[in-house]
């Protein structure tokens, strides 16, 4: 059992939402999707998620004013890369926000999305430390990609006219099913791993946060989409709540290797 790390929960989920949204945006711009006038608003929402997340992340630090020094260790520390990635992403998003008026800016969106995607990779590496055997692998990256995908697609619906949402619905449905499978299978795999992995699995399975994330973040949205056949504006918020619960479980319920020193 670790700390719930609320600042990190908010930071990671919200920044991943921003990245997901940007990727969707970029994809659609490249695909020539036509949503003049929505672009700037979309940059604004991306910035809102990102800035809220980044502000939250400061509360995680013992000494937030020295946060900038975290860029110092690019040679080995993924956290430095994560900060660099998020910072560039922020700059590009700001640029996008201020430059995109009437005209679409496909290149900026593409670049931002690319940086965002890389940042997801850096994040995945940062949160896969040896201290947590259950996470010392590609799983964090998978989780983060899923978060970006789920929230990116669902929030995209805000900027998509209802008649154009059917393909979004399809992507989201598939993502939710993939997410559900991943999140249900992962603890089962952990159960057959070492002691600390198994302990992590048990902690997750016993956690209301985990089941909250499954039900609120995955099952409920699936049922709703199946029923409504659309992504109503409030649906992304439900998925967001699910993601936040899931991330809280990620930080709080994952068992640290040191808790089992002396045990097999």
């Amino acid at each position, binding site marked *: 059992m670790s700390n719930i790390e609320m600042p990190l929960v908010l930071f990671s989920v919200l920044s991943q939402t921003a990245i997901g949204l940007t990727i969707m945006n970029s994809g659609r711009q490249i695909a020539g999707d036509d949503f003049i006038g929505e672009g700037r608003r979309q940059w604004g929402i991306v910035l809102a998620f990102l800035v809220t997340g980044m502000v939250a992340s400061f509360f*995680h*630090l*013992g*000494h*937030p004013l*020295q*946060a900038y*020094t*975290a*860029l*110092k*260790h690019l040679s*080995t*520390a*993924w*956290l*430095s890369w994560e*900060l660099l990635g998020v910072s560039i992403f922020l700059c590009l998003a700001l640029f996008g926000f201020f430059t995109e008026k009437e005209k679409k800016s496909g290149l900026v969106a593409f670049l931002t999305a690319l940086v965002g995607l890389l940042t997801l990779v850096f994040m995945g590496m*940062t949160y896969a*430390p*040896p*201290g*947590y*055997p259950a996470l010392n692998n590609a799983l964090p990256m998978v989780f983060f990609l899923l978060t970006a995908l789920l929230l990116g697609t669902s929030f995209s619906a805000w900027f998509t006219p209802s008649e154009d949402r059917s393909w979004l619905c399809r992507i989201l449905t598939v993502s939710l099913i993939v997410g559900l499978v991943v999140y249900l299978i992962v603890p089962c795999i952990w159960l057959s791993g070492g002691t600390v992995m198994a302990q992590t699995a048990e902690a997750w399975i016993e956690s209301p946060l985990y089941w909250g994330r499954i039900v609120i973040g995955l099952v409920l949205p699936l049922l709703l989409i199946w029923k409504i056949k659309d992504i109503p504006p409030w649906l992304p918020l439900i998925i967001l709540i699910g993601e936040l619960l899931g991330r809280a479980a990620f930080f709080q319920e994952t068992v*640290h*290797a*040191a*808790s*089992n*020193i*002396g*045990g*097999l």
Partner: protein
Amino acid sequence: MKKHYGFFIDAERCIGCFTCAMACKNQYHQPETVVWRQVYPISEEIYPYHERAFYSLACNHCENPTCLNVCPVKAYYKREDGIVVHEQDKCIGCGNCIRSCPYGAPRYNPEQKKAEKCSLCWQRVDAGLKPQCVQSCPVEALQIVDLATFDRPDTVQYPPGFPKHEKLNPSVRFVVPQLPKVIGREDI
């Protein structure tokens, strides 16, 4: 060969008395909940008698320290002699090293809002003294050794109950505890 300090933990000699852990507190006066050295009982799956065998562990001063690698502000450095030092004035308290180290060596200091860990008493070592934990051990179960020349054949790097992380290559060597022959009571 280059000097590389590490701890030699003779769990066969160790009596789990916690003297080393307390000697560390006596030297550095860490605040409540911050312990640089902890004495971990070995579970009954490994040693069948409850709380009768122990590993006394602090920082393992790994050859490839994950704390150093993941620290975004370069608050860690590894000395020529292998000692991994945490410089607290650089630390911003991000907790990344604490999350990262599988041996639980860095601890969060709630007063300073920074991490800290065993320094292998490098100031004492530089002054020709033993680290305080080593000096305090009443049964000579804990020693500082130079791994470049250490060659006791009966030692292991990863005894059962000690997380195996070959990438980190912790600078510790162990002798595992033996069981006595137990003559149990006939009447119960």
